[in-house]
């Protein structure tokens, strides 16, 4: 096998382990997705809250900034000390990394809603809750989406590193490739789908984000 060109080896691997790769692909995606979902579930409401309490906002955002500066391998190891090996450790790490972009974008999105529109909505008799879900959220949605987009792309990369703590996923194949002699096809078989996943996710969320842009809504 090893005497064959790299390209042929790769195709061979794909044809013989297609299902396995697909499985790892799904696992990889879900780990990233859960982490980001968790971050969104907590980050969006928190962002909405701090947009109305901006002294608190500065503090929370600087905390999130600090988290962001920790290198991902270090973060993984620290979380591993608490949660042990496995996918959960990676999900928590991704959650921590995703908090900042989601929180910050939610905060910015809410802050950027034209105060005139808020004034007029309030003056027409909207309750705080109506103001939020009828006006602020729809108008901030595209900015929030762009936060999720950033978080998701970063998360897919970080999940690959997560293979070090035994989470599986496409990163697992990359690591095995680096450990094996002549592991190039294995590395590519893990790296190419990872890159593809990041690009596709970016495109899909990007178009969602466009869809939510207030000025584009009429092109539904």
């Amino acid at each position, binding site marked *: 096998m090893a005497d064959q060109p790299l390209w042929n080896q790769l195709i061979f691997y794909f044809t013989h382990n297609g299902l396995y790769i697909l499985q790892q692909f799904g696992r990889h995606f879900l780990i990233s997705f859960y982490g980001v979902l968790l971050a969104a579930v907590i980050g969006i409401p928190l962002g909405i809250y701090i947009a109305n309490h901006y002294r608190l906002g500065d503090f929370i955002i600087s905390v999130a900034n600090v988290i962001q500066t920790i290198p991902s391998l270090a973060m993984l190891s620290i979380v591993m000390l608490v949660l042990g090996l496995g996918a959960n450790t990676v999900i928590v790490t991704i959650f921590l990394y995703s908090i900042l972009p989601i929180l910050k974008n939610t905060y910015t999105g809410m802050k950027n809603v034209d105060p005139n529109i808020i004034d*007029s909505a309030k*003056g*027409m008799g909207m309750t705080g809750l109506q103001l939020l879900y009828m006006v602020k959220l729809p108008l901030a949605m595209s900015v929030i989406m762009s936060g999720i987009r950033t978080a998701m792309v970063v998360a897919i990369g970080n999940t690959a590193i997560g293979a070090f703590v035994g989470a599986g996923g496409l990163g697992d194949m990359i690591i095995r490739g680096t450990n094996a002699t002549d592991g190039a096809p294995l590395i590519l078989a893990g790296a190419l789908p990872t890159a593809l996943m990041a690009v596709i996710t970016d495109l899909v969320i990007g178009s969602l984000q466009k869809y939510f842009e207030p000025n584009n809504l009429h092109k539904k």
Partner: protein
Amino acid sequence: MSTAKEIVSFRNVAKKYRGGSVGVENINVTIKEGEFVCFIGTSGSGKTTTMRMINRMIDPSKGKITFKGHNIRHYDPVRLRRTIGYVIQNNGLMPHMTIQENITLVPKLLKWPQEKMDKKAHELIKLADLPESYLDRYPAELSGGQQQRIGVVRALAADQDLILMDEPFGALDPITRDDLQELIKHLQEELGKTIVFVTHDMDEALKLATHIVIMDSGHVIQDDTPDNILQHPANDFVKDLLGEERLLQAQQNTLSVSDIMSTNPAKITLGKSLAEAIRTMSLRHVDYLLVTDDDNKLKGYIDLETINERYSKDASVSDIYNCTRMKFRKDSYLRDTSEKILKQGYKYVPIVDKDNYLIGTVTRASLVNIIYDAIWGKEELDNPDEIKLPASIAKGSDKS
């Protein structure tokens, strides 16, 4: 209008901000149903603050505001706001909602059935004078003026009687603004809506308002009808705000002809001979004479042309005089007469009292003086004896 019920009243209202800065102080204003009230003042005068207290966008720190007889503190702010129309400068349309959704926003908050909302949307887009196809568009697809039209009619969607407008036309070009001013004047006059309008544009206020409240640094300086404010500005601040030009124009509007007439008209009695008439003309440097009877009652006029054509030695004035074409009563307003004099090319118009006694004339020369004053300000006139000036023109504007 004076018998109309009051809809909003401010009693000793004050707003102090944290840190002690005063928003407004000692506001006492009563707004009656059907009025068009303009709050006017420079920025920082508290006019917007005062308006926003009506729908509890700002709560006063002191005093009482009533809406339809009840203290607004006893209303739930959200429900209060749904019964008061609200229009702001940059139209405040929701960019993510269609025009229809924008118009029926308050009805939707009030949970009207869908058919009723549809009907209302169609009714209001007609009122805004825009095609019904616009209902499905988004605000960004409309021009600024069209957007503000929607902004205005939206304030009526739930049949609000009172509409608050915060400098709604500040960002519009003059032509569009005129159109919109007509629209809201129509709402007030035909539909009987009460409008509270905040502006810093005096022309706009004078054009629209039936009631003007002038504010400066948080205080009401003057609270009156536009006419009264023009006639009796409370102080120099109001005068400055109005501007010299408007004050002079306003004087012209309320001056009566007797204020500017010459009290010494060139006249002759019926019995005099034509020769005498010509002598009088030459003495007075005029080419016409007013003809009166011996009691000074106006009969008509005689001019050089007629004398020239029909001169005979023995004829008297009574033989050839013309009957009066145009005359004014001494208490008629100058604004009504000056245009007639100017447009119809009369050189002079006789002024009579109610029993038709001749008491003076208004000549084109007297009008020139008024216009001269309006353009160049007040100066010494060349012939102060000839033209009796009203005190208001001679000495400033403290009296009309």
